[in-house]
């Protein structure tokens, strides 16, 4: 049998009056289930079951006054060690103060740690670097305090692509590069970000792609004014490529031949657009 004494229901209250019982002898109660409404000098308070068990005795009937600390309910408790005291030994506090055998170590944890810092970079730039396959830990950040900027990542991407695709061009001896002096050219503008990437991409494309231009005349007198000329033009080019597959051939720079491989099974067309900040694929939008 476990006895539950009336706890102090309001920090320093001496007694409480039973208003009504919610449980009867023989009832099974669960933890926190309201057992009885008690009226104190402050308020009517629902007293919950401190543990699960079967009610074996009720000490009082509605209207009776019970002193704080006096027996209130007896239980056949499920587990004897659930029978925590009702708070009296812990002070006059309402509620139950948890206690364990835990012993807190007194050893302090040092704040010092080995040097070595991860690259500092905006999350969005880190994301771009990841998508482009650029290892930012290898970059020296050009931003304030060594922060790796978007420009750093884009530049690294271009150089990496360039180096992989055309090692000869990168490693070409300086005698093969065009010599120029400021007296001939005037003040040189240093290219940044997208324009620098664009210049490097164009150099790469010149080195790896065989350029070929076909001019021809077509009579478009029959096209109605205001129509979608671009779409019609693309359809016409598609028809032309179908008629002459060589127009849709490509040159494999890596294998150095044959000069014209068999026609590509699908038609491919590129677009080009210019904006103030640079030029590029119109599908990607303005930089």
């Amino acid at each position: 049998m476990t006895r539950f004494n009336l706890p102090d229901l309001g920090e320093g209250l001496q007694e409480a009056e039973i208003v009504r019982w919610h449980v009867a002898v023989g009832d099974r109660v669960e933890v926190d289930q309201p057992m009885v409404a008690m009226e104190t000098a402050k308020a009517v308070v629902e007293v919950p079951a401190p543990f699960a068990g079967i009610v074996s005795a009720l000490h009082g009937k509605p209207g009776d006054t019970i002193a704080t600390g006096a027996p209130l309910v007896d239980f056949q408790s499920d587990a004897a060690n659930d029978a925590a005291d009702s708070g009296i030994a812990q002070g006059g506090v309402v509620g139950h103060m948890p206690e364990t055998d835990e012993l807190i170590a007194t050893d302090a944890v040092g704040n010092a740690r080995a040097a070595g810092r991860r690259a500092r970079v905006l999350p969005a730039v880190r994301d771009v670097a990841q998508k482009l396959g650029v290892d930012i830990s290898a970059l020296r950040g050009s931003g304030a305090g060594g922060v790796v900027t978007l420009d750093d990542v884009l530049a690294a991407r271009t150089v990496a692509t360039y180096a992989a695709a055309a090692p000869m061009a990168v490693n070409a001896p300086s005698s093969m590069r065009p010599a120029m002096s400021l007296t001939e050219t005037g003040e040189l503008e240093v290219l940044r970000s997208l324009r620098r990437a664009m210049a490097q991409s164009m150099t790469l494309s010149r080195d790896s792609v065989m350029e070929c231009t076909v001019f021809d005349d077509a009579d478009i007198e029959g096209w109605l004014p205001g129509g979608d000329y671009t779409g019609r033009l693309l359809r016409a080019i598609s028809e032309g490529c179908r008629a002459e597959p060589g127009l849709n051939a490509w040159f494999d720079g890596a294998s150095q031949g044959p000069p014209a491989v068999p026609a590509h099974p699908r038609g491919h067309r590129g677009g080009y657009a210019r904006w103030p900040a640079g030029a590029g694929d119109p599908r990607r939008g303005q930089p």
Partner: protein
Amino acid sequence: MPRVTLVESVNLALARALADDADVVVIGEDVGLNGGVFRATAGLQQRFGKLRVQDTPLAEGLIGGMSLGMAAQGLKVVAEIQFMGFLYPALDQIANHMARLRHRTRGRLTCPVVIRMPHGGGIHAPEHHSESLEVLLCHHAGLRVVCPSTPAAAYGLLLAAIRDPDPVLFLEPTRLYRLAKQDLLDDGVALPLDKAQVVRQGDDVTLVSWGAMMHETKQAAERLVQEKISCEVIDLTSLSPIDHDAILESVAHTGRLVIVHEAARNAGLGAEIAATVAERGLYDLLAPVQRVAGYDTVMPYFAMERAYIPSVARIVDVVRATLKA
């Protein structure tokens, strides 16, 4: 070296302060004859007399005003508010006067008051007994807010708070009052008031918490070891001012931050920490900063308490998600 609970360490620090300094006075509801509803002031009135350890009427506004007046006249007051939810009537005295006394008198007067109070829920108490209202205090310039999570920290910080010339709000985690013990040397040595503590070193994610939630936070870090997730755990300890440098240094190492607090999420202290990391540590982040907090609702009564207070499982889930981000 005595082995003490947190509430016993508070008692030791109060006794030490009363013995060391004749200007120290302890006041509050039931702190004298009764010894405090949590036994924090047990035996002090018997030992130091009714002038040094005074019972007050049940009136928090009076406790605030009385503390202010005594402090302005040179006493060092340690007042107790029985539960943090009862603090509101005293807020006028604290925010409008105690916090400003130094400013208002251009440094001529300071306000050496410590207001101790149980903080947070988890003891199956009724309404108004489980509040975590630290942000109400942290928002006011001129107040220090301290929240220890171990007996040793409570002892050293309470002594520091009593010796500090300015008002200190001393939040004692109710749930931890008797939960664990620690070996404590009652040597009168104070701890620094404005420092966070790294209580566990790790590499993958930084967990910041304070007060009673340190209990679940440390358990979560322990559980995550099994998943090869290495957590660094910081006990904020000083809620105002916040030791932002300690957090930023840790985040620079781990790249991830999860803040755990029992107070409601909306405008909680976690938001202030997250904002500061966004301002000063964004470049170090590998994942969005996350908060595990109480819900934006009234703190529920005993039966639903466990659903409200962040559990170990909730912390573990958020840490896992942070590592996948």
